[in-house]
């Protein structure tokens, strides 16, 4: 990791994090990891939501009749749930575990 050189603010921040790291318990570290994973999931699901919403709006603009809206919503919601599960599982597996 890139180390700061002669940067007071960097020294301060790193020092603070090291103190925190020493003081926090393993449980708290795990909680922070959960928070970080949650943030990543929110970003990813927001992206998926926008993609699906854009798809729905585009199909309407291209002529999809309103009677298919409910079916489309059901399909996209189901897909979304699968994708959410996928993201959570992979992030839990691959996300880094500790604060530097």
């Amino acid at each position, binding site marked *: 990791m890139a180390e700061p050189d002669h940067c007071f603010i960097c020294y301060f921040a790193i020092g603070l994090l090291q103190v925190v790291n020493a003081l926090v318990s393993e449980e708290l570290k795990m909680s922070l990891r959960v928070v970080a994973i949650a943030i990543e999931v929110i*970003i990813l699901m*927001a992206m998926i939501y926008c993609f699906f919403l854009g798809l729905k709006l585009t199909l309407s603009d291209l002529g999809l009749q309103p009677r298919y809206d409910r079916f489309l919503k059901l399909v996209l919601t189901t897909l979304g749930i699968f994708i959410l599960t996928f993201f959570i599982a992979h992030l839990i597996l691959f996300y880094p575990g500790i604060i530097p």
Partner: protein
Amino acid sequence: MHSSHLPFWAAQQLVIDEIFLPILIGFGVIFLGLTALFIFFFWRTHYRLWLLGKPDRCSDQVLKRLKTLLAVTFGHVRFWKESLPGAMHFFIFIGTLLIFLGKGIRLFSFLTGLTIPPQTIYLVASLMSEIGGLLVLLGGGIAVVRRYAFKPSRLDSKPDDKLKYVLGFIILITGYLVKSYRMAITEGTLPTDSYVWAPVSTALTNIMFIQTSEPLNDLLVWHRVLIHAIPATILVGYMIVSHSSLQHLFLSPLNIYFRSLKQKGALNPIPNFEEAETYGAKEIFELTWKQLLDLEACTNCGRCQDHCPAHLSQKPLSPKKVIQDLKTNLHQRGRPLLWGGSIQKESNNSIPGEVVSEDSLWACTFCLNCSEQCPVFIPSYDKIIEMRRYLVLMEARYPSEVREVFRNMERKSNPWGIEKGIRSDWAKDWGVKTLAEDPEVELLYYPGCFKGFDDRNKKVAISMVRILRRVGVKFGILGTEEGCCGDPARRIGNEYLYKMLAEGNIETMKRYRVKKILTTCPHCYNTLKNEYTQFGGNFEVIHQTEFLNDLIQQNRLKMREIDPTTVAYHDSCYLGRFNNIYEPPRRILSSIPGIQLKEMERSHHRSFCCGGGGGRMWMEEHLGKKINEMRIDQAIKLGVHVIATACPYCTTMLTDGVKARGVEEKVRVLDISELLETSLADEPKKI
């Protein structure tokens, strides 16, 4: 550059070569595809659709058009009419520009190997992008809070708005995360000036979660770059294919460029009137291609609605809704084109009445406030007039009280139906000669119908005559040969009647070799100056306010002090917004000793209509509140003694408003020439 920082920049270059560049190349190919998609969709769903409209000439005066385009796009000159929305949009626009400029410069630096160490231009570009991102976040934040927390009535939120805000925020935030993670995982010393050139990303490096091994770090970099690039691609793709408001990115500049350069408010004549089979617009494709472009360029911002007197007085009309409803109709009719089909030009779907309600059409006062406020020069009045023309000329569907007005104008050449012979009776007592009696005059004084037939406004004509005599101008009138200028007929939609009246007047004026016309009515002024040219009537036309202001500037009028009076000047729409005459009336009033001039909240280009324009003077106001009474309320709030006007329509409407509010003892409505003449009297007179 400190030598210990070279390993850092070298490691950055490595990360970029191994991860960023492949992704960039991949998305570069995708963007090429998106460009092709854009061209296809632009041609198929926009260009072909516009071509179905009637022809219009909007490509002359290229330099002038380019100048306006650059000023509005980069200077946001029309956006700043409202400071908060203007600032919001400016931040978003400039921020986006800085981001792209910064990215472009840095990409060039990477490709040319100028990053180990980076040149100053690279560092500046880095800072540019970071500041740009912050500006966009600020502007976007203001937009979101304004739309969803304050909820101004003119903004109706759609799913499309939610999508663009969420995606926009994701792109910005992940952009910072990409850069900060890249900086955090590279070997070498983080430069000491990182907080100067990349403040946000450097700060974020301290909270980055770093993997324990390099391959896992690389994987996380891939992840971060992809969750930045994918939303950007989704956003661009969505903008191209759907009817998103994001399309204003290319439609609005097109609309600004092709805007009409004709005089504001001058309506287009019906081409080939005698041979035409239909008049006005029943179908959406009976509008011109430029009018169809107007519909697509509308971003639903609602500024027009917020200033429309009809909408503010709770009439069914909303200029924004008119444009949006016509746009929806256009897209629905245009859909077959997208799938290789053709459009049935004839349909049962009539835009006046079905797409836009008749109540909405007749509520318009043609004050031009909507197009004045629109940041991208979209007029709604020209579509409204086309629909009115269809209703009047093809179906004879108009408010019943207007039938009498048409008959009167046709037979007696005035809207009231009073005998033509008494039009110039007011002038007889003053020895005013007609051009038939003495054609050798400096100018023709054209008082108009109000001065000829309305007792209240005759006093204004008399004041003008006295002033003209005082300064020794030789003038004449047409007398009974004067006809109505035709403005009410044209604005209501009866182009046939207007043409008849206009051609009659032009013929009379040409017979007397009239060169210069003075008028006291802004409606006549606008018609004679800007619309009679369409029928061969080219005259020099001046309004009384311009004339009187010139006399004052030349010191040809000496004023005496009058009793102290607070006066608010009410801008006539046809003088102000139509012809940009705002200052001469104010200079006249300011030059009268004793007058303290106050400005109403809605003044100048934001002035509130009196409610008499667009033919509404001759129609009953059944729906909503009375526009003239609303204007009086604004004046009462200011606490003025006198409302000064320069228009007989305004004088009449505001006088009625004063009576309706029962404040005749507190507020009087006077024409500017009446106020000035009081100051010119040998003995100072009380107002």
